């Protein structure tokens, strides 16, 4: 007797539930077992023994944001490529390999164009592009 197929998602939910259970179980154990002697000095954020100066929540460099933006675009491209890649062998067996190859390669070539543009313009450099801009500002 073959069981219903719908439960293929059940293990995912169970594993997530186990993670949450383990998390709270661990917390409970630590609440029971661990000592609790809070002091003000103990709960200052670590700054190599000095008293912390200001908040750590400061303005971060825009480079992180650029990396995030480029990542999302590549992410979406790979999401679009996944279904095509997974039927590529099937199409090839059906004798439509050349057609699929042309479609696939033209899609990827646009992707390469994008990364080549970013590379050329220095958006992929972590440090360099900013040094360049600073030099220009100094002039």
């Amino acid at each position, binding site marked *: 007797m073959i069981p219903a197929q719908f439960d293929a998602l059940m293990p995912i939910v169970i594993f997530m539930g186990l993670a949450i259970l383990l998390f709270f179980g661990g917390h409970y154990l630590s609440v029971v077992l661990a000592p609790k002697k809070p002091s003000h000095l103990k709960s200052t954020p670590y700054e190599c023994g000095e008293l912390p100066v200001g908040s750590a929540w400061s303005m971060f460099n825009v480079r992180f*944001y650029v990396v995030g933006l480029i*990542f999302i675009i590549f*992410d*979406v491209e790979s999401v679009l490529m996944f279904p*095509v890649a997974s039927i590529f062998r099937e199409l090839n067996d059906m004798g439509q390999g050349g057609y699929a190859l042309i*479609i696939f390669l033209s899609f990827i070539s646009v992707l390469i164009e994008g990364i080549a543009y970013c590379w050329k313009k220095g958006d992929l450099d972590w440090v360099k592009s900013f040094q360049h801009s600073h030099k220009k500002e100094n002039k």
Partner: protein
Amino acid sequence: MFLQFLFISSAVLTVSCALGVLMVKNIMHSCVFLLGSLMGIAGLYATLGADFVAITQIMVYVGGVVILMLFAVMLTGGNDFVSRAQNLLGLPASMGNKWTYAIGLLVGVVFLLTNIQLIRGLTKALPVKTITNEFPSTVTQIGHLLVKDHVLAFEMSSVLLLGALVGAAIIARPRKQN
């Protein structure tokens, strides 16, 4: 049984986290609530049997957009500027005054009525379907559609993404001061 559980928990997660996004004053907490809401939507897709779309939801939104939002918040230095101003309902002032709420309510009511009309028409036309136990793969179907029927859209989407990439790079580039 399990699908009902998944549906209800996903729906509760989606709605409650969406409310949380609006209600909390800390923008970081808003982002994290948004994460929960997007996960809930992925769960809703999964209950519909749209496995590929569900995973795409997680991959693009949870893995990408939420992190990007957190980075964007960090551009301004995180939670240092919490708005203290409040409106009539005790919510942050930036969420609007009584006029915006009134207009929003009106739009909501109209939208709800239209939707009820639409859905009523749909349920009459479609055969009543209970939740099936079948869970066929949608990936192959999507792949075939992308390669055959919608090949132009597939190729154009890459051009669109190229445009987005170039635009993102230009906007984020440091300005030259001449």
